[in-house]
């Protein structure tokens, strides 16, 4: 899943016929000139996170000077761990009413779902519970587009009539087309504004694109931060380096997430096995320094690069390697990659404990490689939790 910045999603909306305010991207406050302030403006921090209003990252200005001052304020901010590097300047709409509409996929019904309300400025999740009659929840058949009559019914049930009904119908059909066309997992317009001139316009947009579908979305290349939902902050330098290690070879997967502090280097897999391993260490009071999940039969080079990265973090004083019994990951290949990195870094195993629990394909050879290098190796005779306990015990002797 990947989020798009609002300037990119607004551009797509406009290109596809959805009315939205004029916008500019500002990197420095002195870029703001009289032409930007023909009308009062809105200034929004361009960061890929929601609820910017609550974070104080949306401001208003009536003059060039005021806009410049507030832009300077925004550019000094960090919003939910994202440094603000640019600002979206938009003309302020003359708002009569604020509405809300979102399109997502309902995980329960496994169908696209439209959620709409004409109540502005409220949390939709709360409104659904407190005043369900004010919200329309409408599921759409997966193979179908949204027909005009369907969109019309949604707004009509919310009390919209006259010219705004015609406009809102066309906007919603357009939004649904965009949702399908760009393989979105979310398209949210909050607020959808009814202006004093009776125009329906998208004042703010959140668009997230399914990164599994990027292969058929060449137009979006470079605009979607692929995998951005996997992190609650921008990638660290070490994480970026590990992405490069992973991308250098198509075989196997390797993900690296840096934790605050921690002393145990963590290299486990697969998806479920790594969760179990991390839990096992934390239940025993230990602190892993990173979360790394690897599997799918990675190459020796990939394992080597990953191991070096894990061990390079400051404060790492040991390494825990564990997998569930593998279906296809070759243990001997894992062993060679790990041992190569450990030996190259000159790790002293008396001071730096390494515990391995690996079983599955070619594990006899893997055992030989690990034990040949003096590394504590366990196979299937020991459970993942038992191996984790052994790791924690060995760490007690380390300063």
């Amino acid at each position, binding site marked *: 899943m990947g989020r798009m910045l609002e300037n990119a999603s607004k551009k797509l909306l406009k290109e596809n016929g959805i009315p939205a305010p004029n916008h500019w991207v500002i990197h420095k406050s002195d870029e703001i000139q009289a032409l930007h302030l023909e009308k009062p403006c809105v200034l929004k921090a361009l960061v890929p996170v929601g609820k910017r209003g609550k974070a104080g990252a949306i401001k208003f200005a009536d003059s060039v000077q005021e806009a410049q001052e507030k832009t300077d304020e925004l550019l000094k901010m960090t919003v939910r761990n994202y440094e603000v590097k640019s600002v979206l300047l938009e003309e302020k709409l003359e708002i009569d009413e604020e509405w809300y509409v979102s399109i997502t*996929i309902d*995980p*329960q019904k*496994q*169908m*696209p779902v439209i959620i709409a309300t004409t109540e502005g400025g409220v949390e939709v*999740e709360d409104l659904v519970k407190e005043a369900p009659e004010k919200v329309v929840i409408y599921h759409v*058949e*997966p*193979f179908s587009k949204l027909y005009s009559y369907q969109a019309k019914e949604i707004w009509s049930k919310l009390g919209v009539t006259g010219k705004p009904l015609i406009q809102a119908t066309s906007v919603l059909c357009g939004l649904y087309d965009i949702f*399908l066309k760009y*393989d979105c*997992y979310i398209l949210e317009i909050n607020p959808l504004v009814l202006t004093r001139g009776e125009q329906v316009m998208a004042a703010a947009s959140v668009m997230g694109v*399914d990164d*599994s*579908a990027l*292969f*058929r979305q060449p137009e979006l290349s470079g605009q979607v931060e692929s995998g951005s*939902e*996997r*992190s*609650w*902050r921008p990638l660290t330098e070490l994480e970026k380096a590990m992405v490069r290690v992973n991308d250098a070879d198509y075989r196997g997967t390797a993900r690296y*997430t840096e934790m605050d502090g921690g002393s145990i280097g963590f290299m486990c*897999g*697969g*998806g*479920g*096995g*790594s*969760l*179990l391993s*991390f*839990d*096992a260490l*934390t*239940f025993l009071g230990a602190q892993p320094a990173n*979360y790394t*999940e690897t*599997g799918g039969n990675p190459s020796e080079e990939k394992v080597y690069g990953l191991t070096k990265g894990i061990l390079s973090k400051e404060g790492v004083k040991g390494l825990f390697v564990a*997998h*569930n*019994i*593998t*279906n*296809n990951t070759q243990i001997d290949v894992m062993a060679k990659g790990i041992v190569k990195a450990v030996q190259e870094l000159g790790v002293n195993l008396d001071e730096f404990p390494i515990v391995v629990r690996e079983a*599955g*394909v070619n594990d006899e050879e893997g055992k030989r490689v690990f034990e040949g290098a003096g590394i504590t190796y366990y196979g*299937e005779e020991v*459970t*993942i*939790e*038992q191996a984790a306990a052994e790791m924690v015990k060995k760490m007690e002797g380390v300063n």
Partner: protein
Amino acid sequence: MAILIDQNTRMVIQGITGREAQMVVDHTLAYGTRIYAGVTPGKGGQNVLGVPVYDTVWEAVKKQNVNASLVVVPPAFALDAVLEAIENGIKLIVVTTENIPQLDSVKMLYTARKNNVVIIGPNTVGMINPKDKVKMGSIGGDRPERCFVPGNVGVISRSGGMTAETSWMVKRAGFGVTTSVGIGGDSFIGSTIKDLLALFEEDEETKAVVTFSEPGTSFEEDAAQFLKEGGFTKPLISYVAGRFTESMPEGTVFGHAGAMISGNAGRPSLKMKALHESGAHVIDRYDDMISVLKTVLGEKVGGVK
């Protein structure tokens, strides 16, 4: 007996000539599971390790009377492959493909529901019935016997690798499995925990079920509700991994794509609570599975073989 697959399963593999599929064919045949046909467009008339290849599922059904399909095609072709299988009357489809676009998954699952077709996956390691030596998918790799031995426990896992590890824990406790199923790591899958519990309930040989779960989705909450309603009455032993993720910032994904916590939905602690309140044996540590299995099953099946 077992669920979903047995000696009457007549498997076709869609995408059989691909590199990954050929390894699966090799391991599957070596295990003793028969593969009746393969399908790859343009390669009709060839064979893979003796398995005849056809251009269409229609032909595979006509010539080999296949009734279950293992889909091993790249993400861009998965929707088409599943629709082709459904159109030709296949009622059980295992979709191994990872990274299928969500809107494609939604379309295939919708079509399957309308046609009463069972889908396992997408993004699954597959399933295995060791008594009949039938497996669909890469499950078990080149040595399925290592983890999967015949017995009376059903295994349901949201993680492919942990399907093997969990079945091995069952073996370590002195028991074996009727069927072990990896349900797939995605958020949008065809058969959830609840769906499989319903099948295990009907299976006389299955005396208990073990589940391995992860953060995200409402599969465990739905299963708990199913227990409360009396839909599953056998002992259920559940482990939920990833409790550490609850102390991480919201929206972060660890492990599989389906493992996202948002607000209270998807939290392991709440899943455990729901399962516990509905009468499941929720284990705090994974290794506890062994002792709980011995206690719960020991008397019922007369102990260790």
